[in-house]
């Protein structure tokens, strides 16, 4: 946003507004302002969300303070509950990273819900039938299989986006629903074990299961793996050439292309990585929690959709992603118990998550320098937000 972060200067086609001369001379202040702006943008939706939740709770005769305290206790009050929260946060972190990496490159991949489904199904199939693979190598194969299938699932929208400029929001969203129907069909017609409740595939072989790190919880090797992937994601974006390429394309595809980067390659890579992470999340749920594939397992509100909330709340920053996934992990792991003991409907979780997504990225207090900037045409457009022309949706941008 500031001159210092754009070493090559604003190119002729860059939409980033030229640096304010006053600010360039006060870099320190501007960095502080930038940081406070970012924190404000992360915290504002959280405050709005908790307030909305509090209003809903108070309006229905409940004490918001004690409900939130109960949530906190159930999510972090004991070692077991912490382990449960970490376990619940793991898939959210994976789908969050997967969504964030495409967002960072300026692509709106909302197809991870589909990747979660097909990845989970693939893992269940490998885990139950590939008995020739020895020992716990089977678990690793199933995880990789899930990631691979998850990646392939978003290949079509990636290609359509890069070669035909087809809006990826619509294609990926549509494929989410195709994946739900397709996996249900596959379970029912080709791989059915029983239909107590939702249709299920046969259980995976015991050696394909991811064993819990803490007895009695679902915390598996998946959690440290996801954590490592989050840190790796942060390092990759900041410290590697490919990461720089992704960030450049995200900031300005035409400028990046002009200096020799390939927006097409970035699109396909970020989509595939995102899909793979979605598939991995689905596979981990199958191998670590469900032990089979259950039709429609990813509901209220879905691991992939929660990943979008994680990505926007975490603002694409690796630490932000971890914290955001912990937030949603807490809600998910504590929700059931709070419903049982606090008589608070579990649907509160969905209210909080939905509100958070609606208010993600809003700026209630505008940063000083935004207010100070002269209102020119692009700024006016930015202020009305949500500028759409010819059906292409506004992309999320963060620095």
């Amino acid at each position, binding site marked *: 946003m500031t001159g210092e972060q754009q070493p090559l200067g604003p190119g002729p086609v860059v939409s980033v507004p030229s640096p304010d001369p006053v600010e360039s001379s006060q870099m320190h202040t501007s960095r502080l302002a930038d940081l406070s702006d970012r924190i404000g943008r992360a915290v504002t939706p959280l405050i709005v969300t908790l307030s909305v939740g509090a209003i809903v709770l108070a309006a229905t005769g409940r004490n918001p303070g004690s409900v939130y305290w109960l949530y906190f206790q159930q999510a972090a009050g004991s070692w077991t509950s912490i382990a449960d929260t970490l376990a619940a946060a793991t898939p959210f972190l994976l789908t969050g990273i997967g969504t964030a990496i495409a967002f960072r490159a300026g692509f709106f991949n909302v197809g991870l819900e589909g990747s979660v489904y097909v990845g989970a199904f693939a893992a269940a199939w490998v885990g139950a039938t590939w008995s020739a693979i020895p020992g716990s190598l089977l678990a690793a194969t199933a995880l990789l299989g899930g990631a691979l299938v998850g990646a392939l699932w978003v290949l079509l929208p990636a290609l359509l986006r890069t070669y035909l400029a087809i809006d990826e929001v619509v294609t990926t969203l549509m494929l989410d*629903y195709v994946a739900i129907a397709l996996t249900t069909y596959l379970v029912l017609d080709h791989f059915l074990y029983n239909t107590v409740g939702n249709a299920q595939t046969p259980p995976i072989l015991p050696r394909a299961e991811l064993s819990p790190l803490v007895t009695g919880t679902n915390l598996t090797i998946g959690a440290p793996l996801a954590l490592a992937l989050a840190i790796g994601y942060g390092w990759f974006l900041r410290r590697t050439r490919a990461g720089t390429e992704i960030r450049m394309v995200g900031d300005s595809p035409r400028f990046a292309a002009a200096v020799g980067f390939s927006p097409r390659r970035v699109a396909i890579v970020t989509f595939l990585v995102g899909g793979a992470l979605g598939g991995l999340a689905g596979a981990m749920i199958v191998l670590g929690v469900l032990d089979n594939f259950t039709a429609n397992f990813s509901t209220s509100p879905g691991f992939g959709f929660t990943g979008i909330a994680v990505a926007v709340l975490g603002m694409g920053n690796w630490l932000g992603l971890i914290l955001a996934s912990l937030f949603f992990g807490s809600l998910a792991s504590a929700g059931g118990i709070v419903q049982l003991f606090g008589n608070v409907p579990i*649907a509160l979780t*969905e*209210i909080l998550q939905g509100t958070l997504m609606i208010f993600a990225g809003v700026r209630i207090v505008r940063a000083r320098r935004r207010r100070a900037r002269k209102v020119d*045409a692009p700024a006016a457009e930015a*202020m009305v937000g949500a500028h759409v*022309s010819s059906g292409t*949706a506004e992309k999320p941008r963060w620095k």
Partner: protein
Amino acid sequence: MEVILATGLLLATPILLAALGGAIDMQAGIVNIGLDGMMLAGAFMAVFVDWKSGNVVLGCLAGAAAGAIVGYLFALPITRLGANQIIAGLGLGVLMPGFFGYILSTFFHEQSTLSPSNIPGLPIWHIRGLSQIPGVGPIFFSQDPITYLSWLCIPATWFLLYRTVLGLRLRAAGHNANVAVRAGLSLERLRELATAVAGMLAGLGGSQLALVGVQLFNKDMTAGRGYIALAAFYFGRSRPVMTAVAALVFGISDSVSIRLQTTNLPDQIPEMVPYLAVIVALIFVAVRQRAAERRAAAAAALLTDEGLSTAR
């Protein structure tokens, strides 16, 4: 066959109404992914008011009003606070089932369904004379009032968008924001209005969904119809007639899928049709556009010497 088509038109109504609303909204510059949530709000209020008042007309009006209010409130963070419309739309799809689930457990001690007994449902109007026409009659002229209304909404939407000043302004807000701003229009207000109208139509669709046939509300009853509506107005490129055609086709495919449930054929296949159709349609449109651009570029290149040397 007649039954499948008649049921298909009936099932298409919520999709059709929401898709027309989405088309208006899209023309005004908002990609409305929250239609599903607005439809759900309409369904709940329709059942609730119908139950409490015993009047099905009041129920439907309440459903439409609830949709409009949700639509308006949904637009505010987008227009006034710079929220991202796609994420906000997906968020509304998470929020509304949660909200009504919460209401149901708190006030009605139900997990997900509100089904009051003996509440009036939507009648089926057999239009005198027309419904007796063999073949066509039972399909088109034995429907519920909201379905008839939804058909009237097709030309009405066209008229609104292309023959009124308001429609011109809405389209300016979506297609040429700069011009709209310079003409002194408020993009925010136009988009809020468009989203409220979209919500109203989706809410009315929700009322029909809840009050025709079995009168009940379930927090998952929209079952992605709002997203099928999204597919429909993308398919129809936000033009009322093509959007309506797509919505009706998707509704009929829904009816076919219900029909298939009674046989041994998998009903998930027709379930996928609308979603896949929109992708195919987008590919088709994009390829055609590409070809046209290439032809135009080639033609332009022929006319200039510079073009001859640079044309590839």
